[in-house]
């Protein structure tokens, strides 16, 4: 059995390298490194412009001070604020009014901001009103993407966990299906089926090879961008498990088709369906529909982030690893069964 698995591994590694899989993995990883280091800006925080309107009722000095240096963002009417906001989808509106000598503040939102941003804005205005000594106030720019990390990570490095997550998923999905279809095409799987080897070892070998490629690209991406930092062992464990799950899902989808050209579109579509929400959630924190929580890449992304930029949340790492061990095993069993069914049918 160990002899057989090693034979399968050598075969899968050789055929995939000679089929330029390794080259593709390295080139894609290097491209991502270049993209992160040189193309994506270090600071890409989105500024939320705030449009103000001060009603005639206002006499309160503090209120007036809020808009002291706002210049062109002070508009003549509430309607104008709303009109401006419609043109600028990341903007917010603040209407300053006074009722019975008490400031009345109205915040106008676009409707899709998350609560965190609104709270931050509220807090900032309150601060201005009650805590800032007169004359010393300056309203901070409220960022739509308030960073929760204590130390500030440059934006381009912050994207590394996302890349490390997506690369093995997207590549692994397609590549393992390609490996399988090459065997089907060449008929080599039939030769294997008349040997004493069983399907589970045969699939395991391919999953392991894809995992090795996933680890390689993870190392290239992380070391090439944030350097040898964070918890590398945890990172590699997480990526391995993620890659195993991705490979198995790729294989399960592929098992429904006869050749790569039939399978390619469903596989690519699936990977887009799974990864797009996760990417959106990464770039637009306000986007967090419930179903995101059930997509495995979502928790994995947070765990990978924790491994690369540790904040001491070991529980998150261990929970995710536990969860993904279960995912990997279950998906592997389903894959083997899917191929048993698929090959018998032929």
């Amino acid at each position: 059995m160990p002899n057989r698995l090693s034979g399968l591994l050598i075969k899968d590694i050789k055929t995939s390298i000679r089929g330029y899989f390794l080259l593709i993995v390295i080139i894609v990883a290097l491209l991502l490194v270049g993209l992160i280091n040189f193309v994506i800006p270090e600071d890409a925080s989105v500024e939320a412009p705030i449009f103000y309107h001060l009603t005639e009722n206002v006499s309160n000095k503090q209120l007036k001070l809020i808009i002291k240096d706002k210049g062109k963002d002070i508009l003549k009417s509430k309607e104008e604020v709303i009109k401006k906001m419609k043109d600028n989808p990341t903007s917010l509106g603040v209407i300053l009014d006074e009722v019975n000598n008490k400031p009345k503040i109205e915040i106008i939102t676009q409707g899709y901001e998350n609560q965190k941003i609104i709270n931050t804005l509220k807090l900032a205005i309150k601060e201005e009103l009650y805590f800032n000594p007169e004359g010393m106030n300056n309203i901070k720019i409220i960022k739509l993407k308030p960073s929760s990390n204590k130390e500030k990570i440059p934006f381009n490095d912050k994207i590394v966990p996302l890349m490390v997550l997506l690369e093995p998923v997207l590549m692994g999905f397609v590549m393992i299906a390609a490996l399988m279809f090459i065997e089907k095409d060449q008929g080599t799987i039939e030769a294997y089926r008349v040997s004493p080897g069983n399907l589970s070892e045969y699939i395991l070998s391919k999953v392991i090879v894809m995992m090795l490629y996933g680890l390689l690209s993870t190392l290239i991406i992380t070391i090439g961008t944030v350097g040898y930092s964070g918890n590398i062992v945890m990172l590699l464990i997480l990526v391995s498990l993620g890659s195993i799950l991705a490979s198995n899902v790729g294989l399960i989808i592929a098992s429904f088709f006869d050749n790569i050209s039939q399978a390619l579109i469903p596989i690519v579509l699936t990977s887009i369906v799974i990864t797009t929400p996760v990417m959106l959630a990464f770039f637009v924190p306000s986007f967090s529909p419930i179903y995101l929580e059930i997509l495995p890449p979502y928790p994995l992304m947070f765990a990978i982030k924790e491994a690369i930029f540790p904040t001491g949340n070991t529980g998150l790492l261990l929970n995710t690893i536990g969860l993904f061990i279960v995912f990997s095993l279950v998906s592997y069993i389903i894959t083997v069964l899917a191929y048993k069914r698929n090959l018998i049918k032929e």
Partner: protein
Amino acid sequence: MIIDVKGLYHSYTNDDNYAVKDVNFSVKKGEIFGFLGPSGAGKSTTQKILTGLLPLQKGKASIDGNNVKKSPNRLFNTIGVSFERANVYKKLTGIENLEFYSKMFNVKTLNPLKLLRMVGLENAANKRAEGYSKGMLQRLVFVRSMINDPKIWFLDEPTSGLDPTTASKIKEIIKDKQRKGTTIFLTTHNMHIAEELCDNIALINEGEINLIDSPRNLKLKYGEKLIKAEYKINGELRKERFSMINKEEIDKLNEIIKKGKVETLHSQEATLEEIFIKVTGRGLK
């Protein structure tokens, strides 16, 4: 019986459009059993069912006492299978293909380089299979199937498309294996191969076995009863062979003799192909 097949049917479309129909035969230990039939007769289908590559839909088949429907993986340690299609790893060299395959077995395997030498592939040993010619690929598949020194050996068209010298090398290897006790099931549409190698031949056509016998018996039964006649009809000389087991043909020959049109008459030994035509009504091509 080392291979035993009873009432085997198979339909690729899962209806009553059968690729093999009611196939029955058995193979004795140490014998070379041939399936002789034209393209599309169902030879490969039968081999694939026996080796577990196609599901056993209907009927019974056992190999070395194991029901092929649930034959254990380890059974394949004693079985060799050669395919009509050159299903090797194109990105691996000849020797890498054999080294890989040898690791799949739990039993002692033969030396890959020695195997390549047996079929004249030693110079291509380190060349990737994608650069092999059709005949080279076929030889590679052939030697791969004997890497575990099988007790039961399935050969699907082992010599088709090979030049005569290489084909005779392959035939020698097959005969040699038989002398060492291997049981061999082979399929072919070549009557010479069937005649030269097989102890027993099943004549198969359109999924059905019409007859099973040894080449010698086939010839004794059908060959001697073949008469070649030259006769004149409307002043034109014709040559025709008449089977003496076919009543219509006997009547026709009688008619010709009665009319006194016969020029020459010879009894002739039929080729297997002619016997095939007599039995199945069609040729091997």
